[in-house]
């Protein structure tokens, strides 16, 4: 393995890790702040991909507009889902079970809605103009769109860090994660906070779906395909920990990228191996669970 190949493979891992992180971050945010395990988070990713496809193919051909529509659409649907359904089960004795039933039913409903509107055929969209080529650095070819995705991932990390640590809403979100009742007694509108956090998280998922759409096949069931890996990321990083999701994505992306080369016949199971190792040696995840803003 020469050094340039290691760099190429590392960048491949980063691309994978970034898309993984954009999905997993939303999943972990909802869990961290709301203590809700949103099994349907992948479906918002899928919804984002379809909304981007719809925008580009029928309304307005600019990819970035499409990504915005995907973000907005997934966020609004997410807030509605929280406001109309999830809110009703908070604080019930059987909340955990209900959460899984309810969010699992979201998967089925969203999958069917997508199938009714867009059909079962695979869809795909072009990479945004300006990002269709590839960059040649030191004899290494890397598609510019992959580099852009990595850039977006970094931007989201920095933005999230700023919001969570430097702004009032960020502090409220972190405090709500720690003690919901205390926040309510201090006059914070907790239900509103929950709805907004849900909206932001699902918007992130929608954005990930839009970014992934030019690279992957847009198909019903795409949500399930990403939720498993995202779940592994969240378990590795620590349930509900935003930075854990980031580190978890990086680890998983790179482990897969190099497993493909070193142990190809095991490539499809290494992610589970990593998860099992973490569960054995650090069952709470690499970072403390449910501390949204702690670094």
């Amino acid at each position: 393995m020469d050094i340039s190949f290691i760099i190429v493979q590392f960048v491949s891992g980063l691309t994978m890790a970034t898309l993984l992180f954009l999905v997993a971050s939303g999943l972990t945010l909802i869990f961290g702040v709301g203590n809700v395990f949103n099994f349907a988070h992948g479906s918002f990713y899928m919804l984002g991909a379809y909304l981007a496809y719809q925008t580009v193919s029928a309304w307005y051909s600019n990819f970035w507009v499409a990504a915005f529509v995907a973000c907005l659409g997934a966020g609004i649907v997410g807030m509605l889902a929280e406001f109309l359904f999830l809110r009703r089960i908070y604080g019930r004795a059987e909340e955990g079970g209900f959460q899984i039933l309810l969010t699992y039913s979201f998967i089925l409903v969203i999958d069917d809605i997508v199938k009714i509107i867009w059909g079962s055929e695979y869809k795909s969209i072009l990479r945004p103009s300006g990002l269709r080529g590839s960059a040649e650095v030191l004899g290494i070819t890397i598609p510019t769109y992959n580099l852009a995705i990595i850039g977006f991932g970094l931007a989201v990390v920095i933005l999230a860090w700023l919001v969570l640590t430097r702004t009032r809403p960020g502090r409220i979100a972190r405090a709500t994660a720690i003690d919901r009742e205390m926040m309510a007694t201090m006059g914070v509108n907790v239900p509103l906070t929950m709805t907004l956090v849900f909206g932001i998280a699902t918007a992130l998922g929608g954005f990930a779906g839009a970014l992934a759409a030019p690279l992957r096949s847009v198909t019903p069931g795409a949500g399930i395909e990403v939720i498993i890996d995202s779940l592994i990321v969240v378990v590795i990083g620590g349930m509900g920990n935003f930075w854990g999701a980031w580190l978890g994505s990086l680890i998983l992306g790179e482990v897969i990228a190099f497993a493909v080369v070193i142990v190809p016949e095991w490539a499809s199971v290494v992610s589970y191996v990593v998860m099992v190792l973490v569960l054995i040696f650090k069952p709470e995840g690499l970072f403390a669970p449910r501390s949204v803003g702690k670094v």
Partner: protein
Amino acid sequence: MVHKKALALMVVALVALLVAPLTVFAQEKVIKIGALYPMTGRAGLYGLDSVDAAEMAIDEINAKGGVKGYKLLLINTDSKAKPDHAVRVARRYIDDEKVHFLFGVVSSAVGLALTEVSKQNKKIFIGTDHASTQLTVDKFQPYYFRVSNNTFQSMAAGALYLKELKQTKPWETIAYIGPDYAYGHDQWNELKYNLERFGIKHKVVGEYWPKLFAADYTAFVTSILKDKPDILISGLWGGDTVAFVKQAAPYGLFEKTLFCSPDAGGNYELMSATGAELPLGLVLSARHHNNWPETAANKDYVDKFFKRTGRYPTYAAEGAYAGILAISQAVDKVGNPDDTEALVKALEGMKIQLPEDPDGFTSYIDPGTHQIVQVQAIGVSVANDKYPPAKRMLGQWKIYKAEDLLPPKEYIDSKRKK
């Protein structure tokens, strides 16, 4: 209490509604076909196309008065592409629904599970799509019949293509990428077997096993680039091929290596999903092509499907269409759908004219393996927008005779001994 009563009434009404259509059908003589196609997830398109095509064939036959006084009736349940679930449904089909045939199945994993149910219950299972050769060779049982090509046939055709290619483009190294389950592994083993059998010199430089329905292939692409194979064989199918092609194209993989996917790579959904993005010159095939052979029968079949559904069919559709024709031909010969042993005899060696048969050839079922024997055409992606939304279709066909693609007797014997 009022609520409970209302609820009870609703349940009764619902049950009545569900049962009503069945009781109507029970009045006339029917051939009941219990299908198990996936209707959800990534394989959902294959299921949808199969059911639409099967119903198309059924409507045609029933419109002409059915078969020997029997009307055909298809019931389908979402297989969810899960073997254990499919087995439960199949048992219900046999015990409660009293179906005459089990039918369908996209995933080879589900097919392998159902052939056991078929064997135990002596219920004929018509396989229309799944391609793992194991079903007709290693795990052969008398009540199973397959009406679409298996991976051995595709890989034999692929190997012959590569043999001819040596003359125009000398190649030496070869790599493989395919899904990490029976279907993916079978293809690679069979290709290697056929390369040996035809005496084609080659050096394997890489083997890659992503999981089925993987979303991201970037790391595989960059690693394949490092291997620099002359030929990349792909055993991916459906949305996996779409994702792989989209991710590999900007890396320039298709300029550096010849991409060759002889079993499922040339299925119409790849063309419809990728449009003008699909690189030219990829070597692809599938179990049915919308633009080959250019016979009246094939054109007629594709047009009918398009009129009915508003989309062009994937190969899964033709398999299901063939399955219904095979059932109706068998029942026509036997006179009723109840005499299973006579139906098995009727299916063995049956000749059946299908849309994918070129002029002068008729598909037939090999009595020794219960596998349909068909011609295979391998093509290259070329510009062609006659089947929108596709902007590319296959062309520059190379045709392989059906008999040349069958597994040799010693291969079958050695597999069955195990």
